């Protein structure tokens, strides 16, 4: 946390960290159940995208790499593939918020949707799941919609808590 940040900024950062940490904790605790349902949200990618909105690009990439390796280990996938995909997504996400209007709610929703859709498709295609490309894109689309709803709500709650 930036020591020169103002009090509301610091409070906002704490709340956002709490929101992201909760999403990631739920993901790792209930992973077997969350992976059973096709319409379940991907809280790992959602949490990472939300974290990347606030982190520096380098820190976001490091977080993406760590989460990718841990998730791959749990899923028995290749840690390198998952680490690389999530690192790339986190870095691109952290950079994209400065190119676009990160403060707009609409941007956050579109950002979450596109980020989750692309990431889930890449993970499904490059992982060991027995999915064709069309099936992977379709499955990722459903996940992206649900993830956007859940994570946009979390993001909205953590930002409005300060007002």
């Amino acid at each position: 946390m930036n020591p020169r940040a103002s009090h509301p900024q610091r409070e906002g950062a704490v709340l956002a960290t709490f929101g992201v940490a909760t999403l990631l904790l739920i993901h790792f605790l209930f992973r077997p159940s969350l992976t059973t349902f096709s319409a379940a949200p991907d809280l790992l990618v959602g949490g990472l995208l939300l974290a990347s909105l606030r982190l520096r690009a380098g820190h976001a990439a490091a977080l993406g790499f760590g989460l990718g390796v841990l998730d791959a280990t749990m899923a028995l996938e290749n840690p390198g593939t998952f680490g690389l995909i999530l690192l790339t997504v986190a870095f691109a996400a952290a950079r994209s918020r400065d190119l676009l209007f990160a403060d707009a709610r609409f941007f956050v929703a579109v950002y979450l949707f596109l980020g989750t859709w692309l990431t889930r498709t890449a993970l499904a295609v490059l992982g060991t799941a027995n999915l064709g490309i069309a099936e992977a894109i379709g499955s990722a689309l459903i996940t992206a919609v649900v993830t956007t709803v859940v994570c946009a709500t979390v993001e909205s709650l953590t930002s409005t808590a300060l007002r």
Partner: protein
Amino acid sequence: MHYTTVGRPGGQRRDLVVTLVFAGFAFVLLGLGPESALVVTRTLRSTVLRPFLMTHDVFRTRAGLVSRVEQLGHERDSLAVEAQVVSSLHLENRRLRSMLILPPREFGTYFIAELLPGRPHGGESSRFLLNTRAIAGLATPLAIATPKGLLGVVRTTNGATGVGDYWTHPDFRVAVVTDDGAATGIVRPFVTMDGEQLMLLEGVPFQTDIPTDTPVITSGLGGIYPRGLAVGRVLAEYEEQLGWTHSYLLEPSVRPGQESVVLGWFPRVARDSVLAPEPGS
């Protein structure tokens, strides 16, 4: 809402360097061999991920407890009946072999292991993790089966942990024979246009026809899989005919993802043909 901006160019360069360093780590992980990758998996699963995996175990155990007890009761009853038949067959086989002056039949050794399926987000994984001290030091590949039939093969081991592929893995192959011994071939996984996961029996001689619903078992050729494990049943002849051979679609005997305790097999004779699972495996 306030977000941290990218910052000064110096900071951007540092971010890029950090990202490249971690990308380098990712490429190192990508280049690891199966044994080294298994060491990484084991280490992370027994340290950082241990609390989460223990929670998953608690949920899984509680969720399936009642149905599991009922299922075990049924399995125990049917096994008792089968054991009666098998013991008389053993005696008969030994007597006949001694009359023909043949050496005792070598069955190989079975062991019992805990299986943890891979869980990708979306779709079914074709990979699993095996936990049992019985595989420590054994040469791979090792056949993995359930009482219903062949499930897969362990590719790499490290200590008491092994990583294997279900029969759904694209590289999986097994030599088979029909239960009447009339036709032989090689089975590989096959995904239909509807996305259904089946098996494809290839290399059946052109003049041999296999009727629908014929059971197909492992032939024991190659020594990785024991002879007689159920593989599947013939569904229909596959449309494509390659040269002088037929190919048939098979309905698999076992579908991955349902079993948590499995049988492993290695072609070495032990005094006791089944090794009991060790506590806490």
